[in-house]
């Protein structure tokens, strides 16, 4: 070779968004600091607990912690499912409809006060399958017809909510299956089966996310789908998979709501969606995909549930609670991602 090729570039400084972040991780050097940084949401959670605890001593009582965990169980199930979709950089808005549909399906098929059906556990299977089917349909329309997931799932939200209303048998079916309602009633160590179920699901989801191709490729799709396609991966399958998981878990959330209240409700999903997404984002799962994960989202759920609980505990003006919640969401996300700020970072 006659030419000496000399490369004057410092690649760690190349500031494409991804690379910029990786660059600093290396520069900062200590692992301890890195862990602390990704622990931003946990720090916000602890800070919030400290503030509320100092405002009212009741806050950290065992009873209240139980109340927080019980309230977190259903949102956690939703957030776990949502995480699989969000890490791919897509979004699923159909949650409220799907949960409502699963709820009403379950409550008219299990032993109840209105219809004559009694499928027992079969009702749970049917409701879960409905969630799974809607999720898979969402994913299929999104991936194969290349329609934005936001709009596909928005439409599906309306459709499933409408179906739930059409299935509603004009009176709220009271669930008579004692075993099923017992899920929410029987306590072990002060917590209902729902809490344990949520924890177990989180564990399984974590393994799936870290240890399976579905989970790993999901992250890759979120980071750069074009590259994943270039690598010859059948991206669409993984997309459908993620939406199916999300649909199934959202359906499960609707089922669990039925267990908690003991009656079927065609609007059971109301109020699950935006808090679910907010929880994921607060926990550090980026809407643009590729970052975060199940554990992050769980922290986010705890932040939101704790906040709501704390506002009630401290007697904040109920009319202003929404406003306070809004500000806290913004501040929490800003604080926990502050260290990621770069001039060349792109956040949409």
């Amino acid at each position: 070779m006659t030419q000496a090729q000399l490369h004057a570039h410092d690649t760690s400084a190349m500031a494409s968004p991804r690379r910029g972040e990786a660059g600093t991780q290396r520069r900062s050097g200590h692992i301890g600091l890195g862990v602390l940084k990704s622990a931003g949401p946990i720090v916000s959670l602890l800070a919030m607990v400290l503030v509320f605890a100092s405002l009212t001593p009741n806050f950290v009582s065992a009873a209240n912690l139980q109340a927080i965990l019980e309230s977190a169980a259903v949102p956690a199930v939703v957030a776990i499912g949502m995480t699989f979709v969000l890490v791919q950089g897509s979004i699923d808005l159909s949650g409220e409809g799907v949960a409502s549909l699963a709820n009403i399906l379950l409550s008219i098929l299990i032993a109840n006060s209105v219809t004559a059906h009694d499928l027992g556990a079969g009702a749970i299977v049917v409701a879960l399958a409905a969630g799974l089917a809607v999720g898979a349909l969402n994913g299929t329309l999104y991936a194969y017809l290349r329609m934005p997931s936001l709009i596909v799932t928005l439409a599906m939200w309306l459709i499933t909510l409408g179906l739930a209303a059409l299935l509603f048998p004009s009176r709220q079916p009271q669930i008579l299956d004692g075993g099923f309602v017992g899920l929410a009633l029987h306590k072990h160590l002060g917590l209902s089966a729902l809490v344990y179920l949520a924890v177990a699901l989180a564990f399984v989801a974590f393994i799936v996310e870290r240890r399976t191709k579905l989970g790993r490729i999901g992250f890759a799709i979120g980071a750069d789908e074009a590259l994943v396609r270039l690598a010859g991966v059948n991206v669409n399958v993984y997309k459908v998979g993620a939406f199916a998981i999300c649909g199934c878990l959202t359906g499960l959330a609707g089922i669990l709501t039925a267990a908690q209240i003991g009656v079927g409700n065609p609007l059971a999903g109301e109020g699950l969606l935006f808090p679910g997404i907010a929880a994921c984002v607060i926990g550090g799962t980026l809407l643009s995909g590729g970052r975060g994960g199940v554990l992050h989202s769980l922290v986010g759920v705890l932040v939101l549930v704790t906040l709501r609980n704390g506002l009630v505990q401290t007697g904040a003006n109920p009319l202003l609670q929404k406003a306070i919640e809004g500000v806290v969401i913004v501040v929490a996300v800003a604080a926990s991602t502050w260290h990621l700020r770069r001039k060349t970072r792109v956040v949409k």
Partner: protein
Amino acid sequence: MTPALARMFPSIRSAGDLLRACGPAIVLVLVCAAVICIAPGILKWRAINALLFDAAPLLILVIGSTLPVLLGCIDLSAAAMASFSAVVVTLLVPEFGSAAVPLVLLGAAGIGAAQGWLIGRLQIPSFVMTLGTLGLFSGLALYLSNASSVALGAGVAPLDFLGGRTHGVPNAFLAVVAVWIFLSLLLRFTRLGRDIYAFGASELAAYMSGVRRGLIRSCAFAISSVCAALGGMMLLSQTLYSAPTMASNLLLPALVGVVAGGTAISGGVGGLSASLIGGLTAVMVRVGATIAGLPGAAQDVAFGIIILVAVAVTTDRTKIGIVK
């Protein structure tokens, strides 16, 4: 195509492109045709007139929401802003009279700009920022109105105007058209417009090319907020009562309108005319379902299916590499 036309619409190179570009309009025409078949009475001027009057608040929200979407952002707070500003206007009218309306519009612009600016400063996703302000605005609206409907004082000229008609055409709709023309010109012929599209296509490359993204984002969100506030005024001019949640449910239809017109949520592709068409489609679908006498729940199902079909037909997938 003539060269001049080709220059005006550079992206249209073949018949297929043309069809795709017209997709949303074709869908709108088909939906209208279907509605007319169901209820020929709708063709009467009075009926059209009434529809336009009703549609105006939604249309203005659709137009406003388009700008953040063109950036690849999203403004979830628009509907809450509409309710909030309606409440604030009714509260300010006893004090300021007609001046309350421009005051509130100005305030909305400021708040919107601040919102856009904060997204950049704090580097948080617009989804999160506006989800936060959605909570903030609706909370404040509840608090300020003490959770009640407030009657609008008499003699507020701008609102009387919005509620009235000129030569039989609802002024609210004329206002929508005026805003649409103004913003379309802004997008097409000014530097701001070019920068908005550049930002949407690639924020990083635009930034490295000297585009002032903080400024651009502030402008887009300010416009979105002002349009939302204007929507709130239109609604107020119809109801004459403000309520802290009166427009909250417009959030999703507005988004549907934006996307049904073919504007990509990933940014950089689409425009206001597309949104206007999309918004009208959303309105006509609702009207059609109502007139067809579908039961409420089935209306939702039908609406959902039509959105799916409309978007499946209208999304220009060639321009968006990756659909998210």
